């Protein structure tokens, strides 16, 4: 089969229209009940489970010919799986793609939220491996659904408390649980907890797709998203002693790059578009503004500098 015949013998954006309708219904329900996991009849996709089939199904359902798509993995547009998913939509949905966060109408992501503030009208689609935040505390779906229904989240707080008593910190660094709209505890997907504050009161629509587990959930724009914590142990985000070695950013999430086998390493922005824009000097001013909004960051930075 040549690539061209493959593309033309499938429906627009791969999924058939009935499947899209089923997914749209699930999405509407998810938006109506922020943070609630809606079961949906996930389809087999032409990429493996674990590669973002949930996110791909959501993107395929919401996307149209006038959209501009950005795909990131680990914050970067050029990681292999991001390239592969972007090519999939170029081929099946005949769509414009971009690496610029501000130019995208739909952004599919794995493990990061872009550093640049998202705006109204944008949709951020997350790829989710395990949608159930209580899964590692209680493996049974029948039990965890009951716990959500009864708003029975004591177990999660006990887990976080045990972390503090054992380590002095909450030892969760990514997939850090949040409470959405004051009701459902939700897994933000394995983004670093650094990104949690960006979810709160976000102007963009945030959609979450878990293909293997067949769940969809959502955070509508301007919804309260609170990272779980305690009064005496407030939520805090990661910080680094170094700045980004390429763009000098002091307040973005940094990846560690090992330079040799003698322990030398450097730190660079995980968000490649953000880093490149700063190097080009084209960073819009709004970004600086948002970053200073994250007040927790300031406190962490000052603590780290002590």
């Amino acid at each position, binding site marked *: 089969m040549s690539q061209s015949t493959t593309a033309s013998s499938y429906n627009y954006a791969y999924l058939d229209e009935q499947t899209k309708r089923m997914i749209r219904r699930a999405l509407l329900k998810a938006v109506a009940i922020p943070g609630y996991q809606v079961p949906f009849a996930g389809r*087999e996709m032409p990429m*493996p489970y674990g590669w973002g089939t949930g996110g791909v199904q959501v993107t395929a359902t919401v996307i149209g010919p006038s959209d501009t798509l950005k795909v990131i993995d680990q914050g970067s547009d050029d990681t*292999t*799986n991001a*390239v592969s998913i972007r090519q999939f939509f170029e081929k099946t949905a005949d769509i414009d793609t971009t690496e610029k966060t501000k130019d995208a109408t739909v952004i599919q992501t794995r493990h990061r939220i872009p550093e640049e503030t998202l705006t109204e009208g944008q949709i951020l689609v997350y790829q989710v491996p395990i949608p159930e935040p209580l899964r590692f505390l209680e493996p049974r779906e*029948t039990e965890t659904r009951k716990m959500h229904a009864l708003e029975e989240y004591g177990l999660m707080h006990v887990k976080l408390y045990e972390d503090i008593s054992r380590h002095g910190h909450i030892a969760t660094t990514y997939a850090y649980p949040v409470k959405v709209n004051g009701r459902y505890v939700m897994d933000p997907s394995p983004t670093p907890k650094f990104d949690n504050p960006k979810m709160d009161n976000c102007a963009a629509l945030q959609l979450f797709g878990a293909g293997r587990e067949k769940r969809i959930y959502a955070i509508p724009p301007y919804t309260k998203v609170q990272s779980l914590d305690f009064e005496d142990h407030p939520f805090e985000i*990661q910080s680094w002693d170094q700045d980004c070695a390429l763009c000098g950013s002091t307040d973005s999430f940094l990846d560690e790059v090992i330079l040799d086998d003698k322990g030398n390493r450097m730190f660079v922005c995980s968000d490649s578009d953000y880093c490149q824009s700063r190097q080009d000097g084209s960073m819009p001013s709004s970004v600086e503004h948002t970053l200073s909004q994250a007040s927790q960051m300031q406190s962490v930075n000052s603590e780290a500098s002590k």
Partner: protein
Amino acid sequence: MYVAVKGGEKAIKNAHRLLAEKRRGPKEIPELSITQIKEQLSLSVSRVMAEGSLFDEDLAALAIKQARGDLIEAIFLIRAYRTTLPRLAYSLPIRTDKMNVERRVSATYKDLPGGQILGPTFDYTHRLLDFDLMEASDDDLSEEVSTDAEGLKTEKTTQPSDTGMPRVLGGLLNNEGLIQAETLPENEEEHPVGDLTREPLEFPVDRDQRLQNLARGDEGFILSLGYSTQRGYARNHAFVGEIRLGTVSIEIQPPELGFAIDIGDLEITECETVNQFQGSKTEPPQFTRGYGLVFGQNERKAISMALVDRALRAKEMGEDIVAPAQDEEFVMSHSDNIQATGFVEHIKLPHYVDFQAELGLVRRMREEQQTPSTQQSQTQQAAE
């Protein structure tokens, strides 16, 4: 100076090209044809059709070729194709009692109406490598094999099979009321058969969805679970009442026609097990059943499926759930090899960000441990 890694696009393209080259192998060796795979590796084709849940021998053979013989990869190709196919019609239930039987054995009766027909089985072969097969040679097969059912029967006393082949459990044991009857929903309109590929899996589930899940489930996983029931993890004393392999016709009944039309044949393996009897104050002791059905020829899977089906009926039989094979959430959530292989293998994808987050935490905790004074001040801070 470090330059951000670019070139994912080019690397992917080259990797695909290398893969295609590896699949083909050395050019001086003739390329495998789809018909060769279909006709000579038919048990692989059976497995790919069963777990891919699409009955199409040519596509299964193509998938095996494209997947370089990796059957789970081939199953994946078939699943990804299947999911795009429209549903044109639902067939009538297939009639396995009307099967054109190629093999049929019962372990519970020495002889029975219709007879024991061995068919093409490895069961009584000695597992000695046949070095003659090293060379392509059809000499051994020059003698015509009798595929006539009479020639494959173990007993000569039985009635000829053309008088029908009643099912052991349904026809023979049920006459005496010794075995639990299979009950069908009164009204199929109100209780349509579930379809896990069209509705999300929500627990608890009914037997129809469990059977669908097992039929699509990984052969190795179902085999091991079935085995575990025999070793005491929810033992249910199974006998193979009957195994039959053959073709059944598949029929649809378009509403505008009002009668059924035959649209083709399906090769299937069916297994029914007779399991431990139970009784209660209100019900006399009775045997119970397990059921297995797979596309193509695959007795290992059909028998294992019947064992696991019986184990999963624990709740309806009022048995304690004590073992993995009885636990529908455990079994159904982990039986699908496409889901399993995807999620297990996905950890080879980049996880720099999460790992960075963990690195930071571990470094910080080690620092605190090594300098007790800081730790104290940290704890103090924490207490504030």
